[in-house]
């Protein structure tokens, strides 16, 4: 990926990027747990919590996605971990967006789509975080 092969110094991952990709995980996870709590209790406040946790998760994901996109443009990578990281974040953003729209439905109309989408999003968020942070590990070696 680098222009001057062996001599290039790997760029260390920025702490803010690490914070964004990792920070989205507990927010999506919190959304999933809230959805499950709503599913088992029909207590509406859980679905309100889920909707707001998703908003937070989407802010993190959106910022991380922009970051990953710029990084992709700057390195000019056509393959490898930066691309994987970007694709995972893009998929996560798409699923998260659909999940957000689902959470805008009224009362039980969010079921059963909400916990399913939140589960997919949580898994994608975990993968995106691992891929994003692994970039650092691979390059630094």
């Amino acid at each position: 990926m680098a222009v001057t092969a062996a001599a290039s110094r790997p760029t260390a991952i920025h702490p803010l990027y690490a914070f964004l990709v990792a920070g989205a995980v507990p927010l999506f996870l919190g959304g999933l747990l809230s959805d499950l709590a709503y599913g088992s209790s029909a207590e509406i406040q859980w679905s309100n919590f889920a909707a707001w946790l998703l908003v937070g998760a989407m802010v993190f994901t959106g910022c991380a996605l922009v970051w990953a996109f710029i990084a992709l443009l700057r390195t000019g990578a056509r393959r490898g971990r930066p691309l994987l990281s970007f694709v995972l974040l893009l998929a996560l953003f798409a699923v998260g967006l659909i999940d957000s729209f689902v959470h805008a439905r009224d009362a039980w109309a969010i079921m059963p789509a909400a916990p399913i989408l939140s589960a997919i999003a949580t898994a994608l968020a975990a993968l995106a975080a691992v891929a994003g942070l692994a970039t650092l590990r691979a390059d630094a070696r």
Partner: protein
Amino acid sequence: MNRGVAVAALAALATGCGHQQRDPVQYGPDPQLPEPERGLVPSMKIADPTPWGNARPTVPPGYTITAIATGFGIARQTLVLPNGDILVAEGRGGGEPALRPKDFIAGFIKAKGTSQAKSGNRLSLLRDADGDGVYEGRTIFADKLNAPYGLALVGGQLYVANQDALVRFAYAPGQTRASGAPVTITELPAKINHHWTKSLAASPDGRFLYVGIGSNSNITERGMPAEIDRAMVWQVDAATGAHRPFATGLRNPTALAIQPGTGQLWAVVNERDEIGPNLVPDYLTSVREGAFYGWPFSYWGQHVDTRAQPQDPRKVASAIRPDYALGSHVAALGVAFSTPAMGPRFAEGVFVGEHGSWNRQRPSGYKVVFVAFRGGRPAGPPVDVVTGFQGADGKTRGRPVGVTVDPRGALIVADDLSNTIWRVVPTRRTPAAEAPTRPAAPTGEETHPGSRTPY
């Protein structure tokens, strides 16, 4: 590439519910009810307001319409007093806190389709002293009220349903200003107040008042506890303020009327949203004592709405069907029984003011219709009476709310977008081919201090 696919997929999902072919027949006792549907975004078309300019609402041949007054602080419901004076309830209530991310977005979008005027929180009185159809007199009958809506006069008492309390003024014929502050008869459920309007009717003997109280949500999305004492009609003892639920499961009973002769209570009710453009029809119904009309557990009898959880099969089993569907999302906000003075076509039946839809691509409502009665029951399709609130250009010039029949032969329509009171009268001459609409001459601003003419 990936992004393109994702966007296309999203767009397809979002518009999945957008295109309807032909609308099902949804008036009368047995409306066609399609299956519930919901895409990612509910199908929507918000009114795009524009001033009337030289345009006027359209009325049938043989009738004329004039704007008799304008510049109100949101004109909602009217009451014709025995001497012909008209009371106008002005105000906007509600103001529920935004609870979910959706509330911020939906609130912003829907506000675009309504009046930006400030809530008047008062009753204005309009007077046509010489009976020429021009209401040259205008006074503030009472102010400092809290979003007044329902009005009723019986036995020298003027009852006003504020958004939080039922109050009473003493009224003497000819009075132009209330003689003092009102007396509170009873507090009304006002927490959150998602559907804030409190409709009102009085039994002919004046013993009981009926107050329509709307639900606190579309379909329980603010939780079941928020729905205690909501979505029902209260019967209130006028003397003591004691009250009890008279009928329940009525999602938003926005207007009540007593049928002349029988004394039967009737209501128009706004049904639930966001399960498709053709669900659920708003309706006109006689309100049966002790009856349960379905909300939130079911609609139009026993059609279960799974959005309300936990479900209640016993309540669903007890739900009765309303009498007459008016169509989905028409937003019926006014109802009034007619008199023979309105002309033979509209002699027996009710006028219904339809504020107009948001939850469907092809707008419905935005007009005043007449539902003919035969043998004391609704019969036949609704007939258009006042139309043209939405122009051919797709812009919305007015939105009808309250309708009231002046026994001398006039239909009074409150329009809360242009904040105008319209008056429809049969032309005295023989209804020839085409009766021209008389150019409106609303009383000018100079005569009405503080009023603002929207055209």
